[in-house]
């Protein structure tokens, strides 16, 4: 049965390029109004965030045995959250969000990706949102794009890939936009018109140029910030500015998580960036923060044991961070698998207890009313949604 569904999925994903009207997902579309007042931001943490260091489960006695130099809990400045978990000191700027119920997390989540532990395949699968049985290629695209295909009333403006990084999560046939906070167009309006003519028969260039000219006309170029987190703050601020308008979905990346050696300062810098991006979103969104959900996802977790270089290597189960005024925060979601010898995946990694896609799916269900069947068959083909974690307020 599942096999059939997936073949159908692939076929329809290919079809949508040929004829939008023929696509089964699009028959009930209306193009009139904004799809929703709710907003979803997905941050891809590239390089595999060590979830056990970001949100330290110090209440598990095995953690201190397996890690002597990292994730050492409140004794080393981490901020206690609930008597079991502690927030990495470099995430301290997010502590007020936790207290207001606007920050939450789930440990031991993963995509279906297993064993080869390659960043690139792991990220590809995370962004494709598929299982291991489908090839990750252009036909599949990214799951946020399939969400767009399933949402009534979307336009290209509905979703933004923000920043210079390629966002495969939004790739696919549904129109969307990309812009970097510091971009601009230096061409007269006559020049823009001529270039539009030049590009006319080359849709990729033509469409990108048309969007560039329009967004540039609408956007004030921000003053160039300084400091190591200025770029991430600018990503958050720009995303917020579009989400305050007609956009409802934004995605961007934060890199720097591949902490094979000397993890302390390296993850510290990455966590600073994540904090800066989330706070810029909150500040920029103002009242709209209340209808916003932020999901910060990474391709996989890292080894439970420290390696010999004061770092951690590629693992399996990881952590999902959630933020926003729309979430039911201030709590941990999911089942803790434990860190004992028999509890680990392959004797080395945190055992995944839930598919990370289930959280994303329930978020979309809550935010945009996306139907369960649509989520399980088209957006995340083959996923079993399971019980509602009730992560939204």
């Amino acid at each position, binding site marked *: 049965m599942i096999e059939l569904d997936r073949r159908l999925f692939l076929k329809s994903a290919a079809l949508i390029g040929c004829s939008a009207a023929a696509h089964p997902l699009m028959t009930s579309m209306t193009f009139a109004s904004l799809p929703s007042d709710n907003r979803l931001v997905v941050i891809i943490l590239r390089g595999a965030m060590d979830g056990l260091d970001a949100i330290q489960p110090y209440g598990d006695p095995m953690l201190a045995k397996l890690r002597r130099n990292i994730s050492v809990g409140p004794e080393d400045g981490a901020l206690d959250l609930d008597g079991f978990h502690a927030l990495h000191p470099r995430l301290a700027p997010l502590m007020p969000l936790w207290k207001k119920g606007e920050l939450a997390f789930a440990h031991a989540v993963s995509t279906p990706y297993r064993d080869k532990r390659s960043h690139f395949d792991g990220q590809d699968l995370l962004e494709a949102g598929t299982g291991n049985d489908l090839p990750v290629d252009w036909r599949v695209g990214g799951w946020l794009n399939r969400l767009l295909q399933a949402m009534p009333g979307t336009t290209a403006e509905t979703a933004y890939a923000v920043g210079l990084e390629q966002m495969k999560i939004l790739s696919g046939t549904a129109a969307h936009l990309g*812009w970097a906070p510091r971009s601009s*167009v230096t061409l007269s309006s006559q020049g823009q018109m001529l270039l539009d003519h030049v590009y006319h028969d*080359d849709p*990729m260039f033509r469409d*990108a140029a048309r969007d560039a000219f329009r967004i540039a006309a609408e956007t004030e170029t921000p003053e160039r910030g300084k400091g190591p987190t200025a770029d991430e703050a600018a990503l958050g601020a720009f995303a917020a500015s579009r989400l305050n308008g007609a956009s409802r979905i934004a995605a961007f990346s934060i890199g720097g998580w591949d902490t094979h050696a000397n993890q302390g300062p390296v993850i510290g810098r990455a966590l600073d960036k994540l904090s800066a991006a989330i706070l810029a979103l909150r500040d920029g969104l103002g009242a709209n923060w209340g209808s916003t959900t932020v999901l910060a996802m990474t391709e996989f977790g890292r080894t439970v044991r420290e390696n010999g*270089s004061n770092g951690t290597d590629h693992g399996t189960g990881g952590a999902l961070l959630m933020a926003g005024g729309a979430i039911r925060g201030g709590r941990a979601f999911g089942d803790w698998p434990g860190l004992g010898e028999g509890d680990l995946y392959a004797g080395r990694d945190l055992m995944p207890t839930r598919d990370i896609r289930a959280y994303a799916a329930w978020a979309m269900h809550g935010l945009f009313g996306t139907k369960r069947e649509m989520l399980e068959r088209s957006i995340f083909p083959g996923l079993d949604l399971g019980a509602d974690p009730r992560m939204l307020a």
Partner: protein
Amino acid sequence: MTLDFPRIAAIRLGYGLSPLAPPAENAAALLAGIRASGPDANAVTTARAQEQTRRHIELRKAMADDTEAARKKFQAYNRENSRLQVRDLQRRLARAVDDPTGFGERLVQFWADHFTVRATDGTHNALAMAYVDEAIRPHIGGRFEDMFFAADTHPMMLVYLNQNTSRGPNSAAAKRQKGKALGLNENLAREAMELHSLGVGAPYTQKDVRQLAELLTGLFYSYSDGFAYRPQFAEPGAETVLGRSYGGPGEGHLRDIRAAFRDIARRPETAQFVSRKLAVHFISDSPSPELVDVMAATWRDTGGDLPQVYRVMIDHPEMTAGLRQKVRQPFDLMVAGMRALGVTGQQIRDLDFPQLPALTANHLMMMGQPWGRPVGPDGWPEGPDAWIEPQLLAARITWAMKTPRAMLGKLPDPRELIETALGGTQSEQLAWAVPKAESQAEGVALILASNDFNRR
């Protein structure tokens, strides 16, 4: 429009047309041109990179005295050091612009990207330059296995993919320093198979990765002693990788590592994976299986003799059949633009701070390809959608507006530039639009920003 081989090859396999140099006449001339892309008189060596780091540490230590003079010296040194990446870009641009056929420098770009490294901190900037001069340039016209070994054992790669901190769990070094001992790190072993040779779809397992990681222990670089194989770091005993055993009882040897790289390089999966990557880079994002198969067959027959593999690609009908199936990556575009404008390598070498980064590195960053800073060891993306997005295209247009005046002082006549830059391949739309531009600057910009010029 029928196009002759020289112009097609210059656009697809080189850095485009130039008013200063005629395109290569045939495949033999293209292949002969590779020789010009070896290390030149300005090549950076690992020894120089060591000196750089040594000096860095010396000056940092000198600051312990807390004198203003020591601090100033250290800051000045650091500034120079941080500028090295832009100097590296300057060298690469100058050589690419001057390369008569362009094919050799395109290959340098391709292989340096295939074996991606990144100077993860400023003290390694010189080492990253040495990497291309020592591990890539000498081998682009040789055998793949030699480049594979040279790249994956080069100090820059050892640092980048954490091999430098990997120790055999049962090595003499690990036993001596119980407690704080360094352990095994699989990063290089994994990428050597997944990205550099076999490809992720190939039938290797986590066990092969681990065995290769154990075999690679012993590879080591330090700024004080340079590269050395250190048997005391190596996991004792033989390792079995893809069914073959390397090394024996007793001390490990560098020759065992070389043997493993040679065997992996000659495997059919490697021939297929790397041949396809070449075809995707030079010909089209979806090359025919037939093209890839004939390249891979030549690879297998010749033991990975690269010029013979290139030759098959150059001579294949798919090379001459289609134009503009690929989008030029930003570095490629920048070189092609300079060449078309008649800028010489010397003019690029004459640039200095602050104009140099303003005219080069800053544009590449905005176009999505910050020099020397690929996101991960899989290098830059090949597909057009990674490059032609609104913000990245806006940056290409901005570059097209700013470069000609900044580099030339006097703008070229757009009606002439369209011929020199595109050699008769321009579309009707572009030919129609260019004379209608409201200024000479915008006429020139339309050409450099056109899809005709941004594709190859």
